[in-house]
């Protein structure tokens, strides 16, 4: 059961990931990306990371993609024309991606520790949010505060960058 669910969700995510890359219309790509995020959220839930899954949907699918779509509408982008295939770009891309996948598979299939299945939790009904919250506020309080400052900075930056008279 678990394996089946995993396969479905993984296929779902990967398919829409390919959609992001291969659709010509930007809006289609954006919607594919939304679906990819949802698929990822499902995968997070299968890993018992409920809080992260919800945050993924809220922030990524809810905020980030909305932002993307606003920009696409603002810039009024049309679908890309068919352009001639540039061999050098495809070759370069193929090399890098192929190399990366080769190394990854080599690593994953050579470590026996990675063949383990999900170990059982001591308490299956663990309060995920509370645990993450405790870890965040106990061990990582300073980075948390810094993140707040970072968000402030990015807000200010966005406002500055969007000014009409910016030279």
């Amino acid at each position, binding site marked *: 059961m678990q394996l089946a669910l995993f396969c479905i969700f*993984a296929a779902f995510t990967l398919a829409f990931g390919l959609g*992001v890359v291969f659709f010509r219309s*930007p809006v289609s790509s954006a919607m594919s990306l939304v679906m990819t995020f949802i698929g990822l959220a499902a995968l997070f839930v299968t890993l018992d990371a409920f809080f992260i899954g919800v945050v993924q949907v809220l922030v*990524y699918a809810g905020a980030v993609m909305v932002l993307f779509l606003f920009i696409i509408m603002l810039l009024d982008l049309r679908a890309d024309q068919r352009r001639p295939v540039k061999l050098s*770009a495809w070759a370069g891309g193929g090399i890098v*991606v192929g190399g*990366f996948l080769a190394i990854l598979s080599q690593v994953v299939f050579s470590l026996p520790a*990675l063949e383990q299945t999900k170990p059982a939790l001591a308490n299956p009904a663990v309060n995920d949010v509370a645990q993450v919250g405790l870890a*965040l506020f106990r061990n990582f309080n300073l980075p948390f505060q810094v993140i707040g400052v970072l968000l402030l900075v990015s807000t200010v930056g966005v406002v500055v*960058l969007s000014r009409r008279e910016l030279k």
Partner: protein
Amino acid sequence: MPTLANYLIVSGLLFSIGLAGVLLRRNILIIFMGLELMLNAANLSLVAFSRFNLGQDGLPGYNAQVLVFFIITVAAAEVAVGLAIIVALYRMRQTTHVEDLDTLKF
């Protein structure tokens, strides 16, 4: 039962898809989406490791999930600023085609 290797393979494939998108697409917004894909692939990896490496008390290692939390936050901020830059760039150049942006050429 899915093993850790399965999750890592999925994550790796997603990452490669994102990388391919960055290398092959010429619309700058699609490239940006590819970047987001890559970040999410990394998030998946982290959460997988968090679940599969249980701590002393039988709970998942929540440090990785905290890291994912940070990554999501930072990615959101990055998207905001990045899109603002793209808008400014569009205002100046009237194009989102990445090959038209070549003023740094020697």
